């Protein structure tokens, strides 16, 4: 795993965007792009350009996830970053709680400067066995999609679709909040 690791390059970062189609289909856009010139801030958030167009149709869709629930108290906390990168602080932004067919989903995005360094599940459906099974897989996969995958050997997984709508919506709302 250490023999090749292109994504360790600091110039790579994730982009998230998000549109809705087919009734209630969300699109998460993840890119690993060389930051040739533009600032990471622009790069990390520009993928969400499609969001305004998408928001209305997300709400009108037929799935249980639908539009975002009323926003809970936004939580934006900042702290000094450890180590040498004193200029870019670490902060975490909590996204909206999204109701999905399996229950509420809410995430917290941890950022160092403008780079996403972690995505933490704050709320996940936890009632029955099936939900737990779903989440034990969905969360690590989706978390990995959002993160700069520094060690992932697997790029993606076939045969997995669950609470991802809610997850993506919560991540997006956190990014919107971080930008604003």
């Amino acid at each position: 795993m250490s023999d090749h690791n292109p994504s360790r390059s600091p110039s790579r970062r994730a982009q998230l965007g998000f549109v809705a189609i087919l009734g209630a289909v969300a699109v998460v856009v993840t890119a690993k792009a060389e930051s040739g010139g533009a600032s990471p801030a622009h790069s990390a958030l520009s993928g969400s350009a499609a969001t305004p167009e998408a928001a209305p149709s997300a709400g009108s869709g037929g799935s249980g996830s639908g539009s975002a629930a009323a926003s809970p108290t936004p939580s934006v906390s900042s702290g000094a970053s450890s180590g040498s990168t004193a200029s870019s602080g670490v902060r975490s932004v909590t996204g909206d709680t999204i109701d999905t067919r399996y229950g509420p989903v809410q995430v917290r995005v941890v950022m160092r400067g403008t780079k996403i360094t972690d995505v933490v599940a704050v709320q996940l459906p936890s009632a029955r066995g099936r939900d737990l099974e779903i989440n034990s897989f969905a969360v690590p996969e989706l978390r990995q999609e959002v993160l700069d995958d520094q060690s992932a050997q697997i790029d993606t997984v076939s045969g997995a679709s669950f609470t991802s709508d809610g997850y993506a919506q919560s991540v997006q709302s956190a990014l919107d909040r971080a930008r604003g």
Partner: protein
Amino acid sequence: MGTIVSIDVRTPLRPERLERAFAAAADALHDADATFSTYRADSWVSRIARREVTLAQGPAPVQEVYALAEQCRVRTGGAFDPAWRADGTLDPTGLVKGWAADRASDALTAAGAPDHCVNAAGDLRIRGSRAVGQPWRVGVADPLDATRLVAVVEGRDLAVATSGRAYQADHVVDPRSGRPAVALASVTVVGPDLTRADAYATAGLAAGRDAEALLVDLARDGWSWLVVAAGGAVRHSPGFPGRVAAAATTGPTWPTWP
């Protein structure tokens, strides 16, 4: 239908070009939605179902999807049947997700982002490479243990579709019997386009105990397949493009494998 499509672009692009590529892919998905959504009264599918218009009056993509649906029905001996739940009214939406993902992939390539993965709720269209000189690596989820994989597919220009009943219980019905398909936990089909890969995986799951005969026949056309039986046994086509676990629930825990 509610699902999620994620797009992962690895082609090094400046942000403005990357944004244009994303927008082109999103446009392709929006177009598919406007044309095929059964949730929209004004979509072509809805208007055709109400017999307000005929198929022949539809635009080229509509005719293409209906033709593909019919081809898939014939090719699978009826195991994939676009009309099975619509009381005689054609409902091609089982095919549309894969078709829309293929169109998004085309749009990305045309927009200068040929290295990408379009993930339509677990059905994938990959192109190019994950990094310079490296093929994409796609895990196939273990339908019996969602924390594990049963295979890792490697490739540069492939579609990988998995139909399983683990996550959407009984969502596939054998159109020939009208009963939920139960003999198999999941069917994965790998090939050149997601439209047909998705239809064939659905057909394989619906065919249950007859799936292997169908899949062996499809393999003659170059499609690769992998089946996990309800009891955990894993079978796959010769030359399946990747590594396969001996049986479901025995593979190492995601994501450290292999």
